């Protein structure tokens, strides 16, 4: 006799964790196929499917057995996908010297043209960075919150990167 999802959940809550294999057996294929439509790499898909079921298992004590499993699982899938995309997002390098250091073989005139792109405040911050101050020290020096300093630096980097790609 086939057990319902509710009965399975109740059994798992009662410590009979071997019943989790029924849930895994029933939903793995559909979740795998769904994630496969979003991500092409097989290894990544497998990792995500594993994460989904591990997350669901972690949450099973809190899970209301009266509710259907599928929507809950797909909500976890959605969150996992979000986290996956976030982890794959390209990260801008933190070191400003990448753009304006002597190591990148830029001529002085080039540096000047790069600096022209920046506002006075951005220039001021980059000068501090060049002098070896960290972000916290800079935020104290220019009397602005740390997050504002970070945002200014990030925006300036984007400008420089665009210029660099031209």
């Amino acid at each position, binding site marked *: 006799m086939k057990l319902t999802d509710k009965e399975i959940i109740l059994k798992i809550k*009662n*410590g*009979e*964790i*071997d019943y*989790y*294999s029924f849930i*895994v*057996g029933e939903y*793995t*294929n559909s979740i*795998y196929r769904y994630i496969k439509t979003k991500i092409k790499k097989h290894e990544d898909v*497998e990792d995500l*499917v*594993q994460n989904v*079921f*591990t997350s669901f*298992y*972690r949450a099973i004590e809190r899970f209301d057995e009266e509710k259907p499993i599928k929507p809950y699982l797909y909500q976890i899938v959605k969150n996992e996908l979000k986290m996956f995309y976030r982890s794959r997002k390209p990260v801008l390098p933190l070191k400003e010297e990448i753009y304006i250091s002597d190591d990148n073989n830029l001529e002085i005139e080039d540096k000047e043209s790069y600096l022209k792109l920046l506002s006075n405040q951005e220039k001021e911050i980059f000068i501090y960075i060049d002098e070896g101050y960290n972000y916290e020290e800079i935020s104290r020096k220019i009397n602005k919150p740390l997050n504002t300093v970070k945002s200014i630096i990030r925006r300036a980097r984007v400008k420089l990167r665009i210029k660099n790609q031209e």
Partner: protein
Amino acid sequence: MKDKNLEKKILKGVYRLETKRTTTYLLIRVFFGLLFLLSTFVFASVTIDILNEQNSFDLLDFFRDDFEVIKKYLFENLIDFFQEIPQPLFYVSVISILLVLATVFILVKNFKKIKNKLVAIYKFQSSKDKTK
């Protein structure tokens, strides 16, 4: 076949997580149970030693007398006895006993669940060993 492998991987991960969880749960409960038991023993024995030195137990000797005497002095003597108990030590001992009882109660309450988990983990491990 590929799906079966994936299912196996998922279950392996889940069992690994559950083994870690159950072991931690048991170790923590046993550790605190023993700690509270030990502190109960230490504080209770110190309290009893102090009461012995003060000869406070003599106040309870009236229990050997007739029922009428017991009835007459029960309340008064018990209050005297209670006043002679070193209060902070007594309260710490009582709290320790209550904590031991709470720990045991929680363990007994969850006993079936933990037992089921341990059986499932054992079954999974032994089936894994067989397939090797």
